[in-house]
């Protein structure tokens, strides 16, 4: 009950922010742009539209996280609005979980809105066979954004908005390269390889959520992939929120 109330309030805050409206408009503009530019893609208009559309959803989602999500808790502490919440019968874990649910719901809404626009475009252009692949890819982008949001909530609970944005961006970038890091770790001397391997395992395995190339080629993914990605996201988010809670529990609000 309490996490859902916090979540509703976080959702309300995010959706009343102009940043979000700007991002949705930018996403729709990007889709329109793909149509204007697809004639220059030399027969690859379908691939171009789907790939750029899905990448746009992912990058714009990340932008919302960096601009708003990374100050989600820090801003409440700085503005002291958190006093009005934590002096009520609310546990700190419930507060953080509520923040994560609310912001994730916002990002899912954006991803869904832009994803449906992309799907509509694909269907309108007569590339209906790709519809399912687009929806699957949007689902995976939603999972990816939820994972990044958990990291943003954790850093935001422990740090300033600027540092938290930098840490989140760092985890996102390294997470995108996590498979390559694992491969590199195998070729390095044992100790260094172990260190790099550990880093690769600690950052989120973001390639797991990337089926943009597959969708652009019109291929769906398997249920196993979707299930694995969902399970991994759930476990990763739970671990990150547990860490965040452990650190947030002893925090003083001066």
């Amino acid at each position, binding site marked *: 009950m309490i996490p859902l109330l916090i979540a509703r309030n976080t959702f309300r805050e995010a959706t009343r922010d102009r940043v979000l409206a700007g991002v949705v408009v930018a996403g729709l503009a990007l889709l329109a742009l793909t149509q204007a530019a697809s004639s220059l893609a030399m027969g690859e208009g379908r691939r171009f539209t789907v790939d750029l559309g899905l990448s746009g959803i992912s990058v714009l989602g990340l932008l919302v996280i960096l601009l708003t999500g990374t100050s989600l808790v820090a801003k409440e502490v700085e503005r002291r*609005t958190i006093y009005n919440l934590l002096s009520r019968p609310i546990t700190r874990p419930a507060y953080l979980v509520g923040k994560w649910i609310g912001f994730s719901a916002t990002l899912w809404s954006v991803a869904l809105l832009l994803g449906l626009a992309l799907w509509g475009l694909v269907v309108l252009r007569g590339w209906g066979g790709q519809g399912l692949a687009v929806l699957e890819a949007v689902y995976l982008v939603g999972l990816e954004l939820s994972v990044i949001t958990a990291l943003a909530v954790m850093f935001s609970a422990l740090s300033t908005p600027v540092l938290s944005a930098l840490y989140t961006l760092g985890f996102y970038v390294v997470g995108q390269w996590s498979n390559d890091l694992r491969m590199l770790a195998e070729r390095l001397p044992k100790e260094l390889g172990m260190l790099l391997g550990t880093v690769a395992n600690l950052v989120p395995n973001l390639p797991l959520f990337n089926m943009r190339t597959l969708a652009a080629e019109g291929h769906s993914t398997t249920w196993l992939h979707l299930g694995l990605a969902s399970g991994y996201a759930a476990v990763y988010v739970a671990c990150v929120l547990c860490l965040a809670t452990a650190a947030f529990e002893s925090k003083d609000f001066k």
Partner: protein
Amino acid sequence: MKGIMQTSAGSIAEWQTADRPDPGPTVPDPGLAVCVRGLAKHYVHPWTLRVTRGLEALDLDVRRGEVMGLLGPNGAGKSTTLKLLTGLLKPTHGQAWLMGEPAESTASRRSLGFLPEQPYFYDYLNGLEYLELAAQLSGMQAGTARERARHWLGRVGLGERPRLGLRKYSKGMLQRLGLAAALVHDPELLILDEPMSGLDPFGRRDVRELITEQRERGVTVLFSSHILPDVEMLCDRVAIMIGGRLTRVATVGELVEDGAQAVEIRCAPGALLELPKHWVGLVSRTQRADESVFRLEDEAQLADVLGWLLQAGVQVRAVTPQRPTLETLFLAAAEAERERRSA
């Protein structure tokens, strides 16, 4: 180790050894609204390891249904105490109970209404939405929360424009909203940090009325304030804090009676009388256009001085005891504490 890591505000070793052991998990008296035992808050700088003492070994009891004022200059530890009670700060030592529940448990905050100092709110919400949220977070169902939110918005004079965004609220309006949010779920215990700050005289009167009304309902009120006349008017008891320590807890009456009782004798204008030498320093005279005023620093001299005046044929118009104000006593206590520390 003691003495090795001396700092300006104390040392880690002192910090670890000076305070009494924690009193344990059992509430000393479940009948108290607020019970504090050995509560201390020390801040350690992460780099220099300097220890700053925000609050020292506080013992405080607030009875149910009582209005208690926390008085003290800036940095006295008032806000630290209130934040420790509301779970916003974690104590270094000691324990506190609210309505019989440990202050660190969420159960203790079910019957608590808290107004922080200079409250800030979500400016993307309107007044009604905010109060609804506050009521629901305190455990009310959605329907009841909406009804209570409307009631309290009206009660604090903000009901005419319930959908006005909080970013358009003035400072006084925000303070009223904060009070409404503290009261919206009908708490049994109210903790208010500087509730009168930022309010004009009308706002202060309204807050006084609200506190009085809550006391009549049986609600316990603990509040900090710099505005001494308000404290005098509202409080059953006053706790004076200075430099992170509790220096005195007493009723306003007790505090006032402790001071020396000065007396003022107002007389009709007449011939200038010379005060006997043995009264110099104890009795002073002020000559005004329409009267002479004799001020006695101690009422023990009253009979002698009156006798002397009447014998001299002076027409005495009034004899008025001059009780010290809470402000005078408070300033004297602060001065005494400063002298004690410098000694």
